[in-house]
């Protein structure tokens, strides 16, 4: 009798201790946040240059004047991002499939795929945008695109296609060989095994790293501005250089964040979900 009472007492004591620990943890987190963030704010606000920074980077009137134009230019970023992303997903998959194929007849294509990845992954994206954007029109061949937006998109596709090809390839390689054996054993051809068994598993596994590359691409879309395309960053720059006020750039930065942060949260969810394999 007294034994079971003692057990109950201990259970209550454990519960109270657990609640105490939780409360203490929350209090410590709150205090340290206030100290760190408050300290940083104080440091910035009391810095000698703060009044100037406030006027050139946080001017409400400059923000109001520029934001509609920056926003409408940002639609170009979005359109380019979505188009390039789709092209990257297709190109990357094709290159990965060629690289993982074992057919002797495909050897030259396989070699080409290796060169493709080495080349376009190895060149800085900004340099690639320059080379494609100014090099291809300089050839003066008819039929080749001359629109800087298209050329910039091609450069981004090549660069990110090389990265994404490697992501896909890692995914394909991560599917155990026994899956291919099982697919062949039920009578599928090599192609059917790839299509119905190996690729679906590979693509599910590489979701998080692919999304990571999407976030990077969404920012790098701004690189086409060096070809003279007036997208959000360029539009903000135009305002900034004519008014000597940098607030429009901050407005552009906010717009990029509006896309990348939701993508990042999506990525987190994929990562913490049942190993990202849930369908």
């Amino acid at each position: 009798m007294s034994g079971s009472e003692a057990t109950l007492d201990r259970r209550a004591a454990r519960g109270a201790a657990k609640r105490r620990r939780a409360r203490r943890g929350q209090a410590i987190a709150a205090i340290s946040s206030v100290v760190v963030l408050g300290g940083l704010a104080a440091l910035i606000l009391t810095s000698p240059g703060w009044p100037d920074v406030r006027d050139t980077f946080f001017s409400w009137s400059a923000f109001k004047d520029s934001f509609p134009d920056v926003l409408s230019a940002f639609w170009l970023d979005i359109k380019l991002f979505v188009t390039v992303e789709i092209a990257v997903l297709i190109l990357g998959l094709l290159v990965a499939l060629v690289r993982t194929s074992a057919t002797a007849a495909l050897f030259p294509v396989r070699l080409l795929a290796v060169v493709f990845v080495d080349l376009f992954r190895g060149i800085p994206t900004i340099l690639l945008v320059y080379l494609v954007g100014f090099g291809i029109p300089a050839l003066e061949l008819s039929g080749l695109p001359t629109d800087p937006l298209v050329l910039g998109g091609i450069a981004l596709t090549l660069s990110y296609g090389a990265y994404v090809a490697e992501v896909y390839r890692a995914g394909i390689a991560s599917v155990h060989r026994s899956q291919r054996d099982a697919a062949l054993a039920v009578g599928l051809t090599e192609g059917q095994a790839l299509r119905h068994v190996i690729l679906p598993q590979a693509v599910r596994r590489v979701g998080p790293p692919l999304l990571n590359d999407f976030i990077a691409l969404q920012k790098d879309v701004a690189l086409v501005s060096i070809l003279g395309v007036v997208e959000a960053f360029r539009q903000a720059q135009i305002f900034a250089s004519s008014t000597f006020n940098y607030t429009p750039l901050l407005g552009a930065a906010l717009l990029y964040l509006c896309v990348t942060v939701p993508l990042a949260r999506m990525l987190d969810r994929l990562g913490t979900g049942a190993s990202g394999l849930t369908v």
Partner: protein
Amino acid sequence: MSPQPVLAIRGVTKSFGRLEVLRGVDLEVAEHEAVALIGASGSGKSTLVRCIDLLDEIDDGDIFLDGEVITDPAVDPVAMRRRLALVFQAYNLFPHLTVLENVALGDMRAHGASRGEAESRARSLLERFGLGGRERDRPDDLSGGQQQRVAIARAFAGRPRAMLLDEVTSALDPELVGEVLDAVRDLKAEGVTMLIVTHEMGFAREVADRVGFLHDGRILELGPPERVLSEPERPETQRFLRRLLEAGRI
């Protein structure tokens, strides 16, 4: 005149690098017959089964299915595999598909059945192996014994001429072995031609019409289970069985 065997293996050799795994295997499996293959790990049992299903290429010899050579390089391996079925030790179910899709995939993609046909056949097979109601689950949600029964249903869905079972209970917890063996008994009762690689001597004795002892890449002894398992002639077989007995496996 004895009828033509479903499976005939003649002088098959297979090496991996310098390791000779099969050194001339001869074996026949007649229609409706179940042949159990026993032998120590590394004796070549799994390799033989993989070679028969053309997942590994043999070096020499021939394998015949219904009198037709299947190991000729000119023969399309896909067409031959469609007439055979292999159940793996580790089940190798497709984790991204449901149980029903696992069983229906081969019927649809390899045998040209419509989705409706394939799924209704898959449903009745799952029912038969005690998995009714689990059609929409993923393999990972099942116990090992259930997964292996799905794998057996998947293999059988292709209406194979012969089934190859590669240590189908070796990866299972002891209490789950029985349900998988029941599924195999069920196939045997229906007269399915089978080549069964197994470590379950009691099961081999019960289900197999003949037992073969594979040692060092050759079949050293082949005969009715009572004889091979109770009165083995070869010292190698005697030693193998004594070791199993000492380990409490018989």
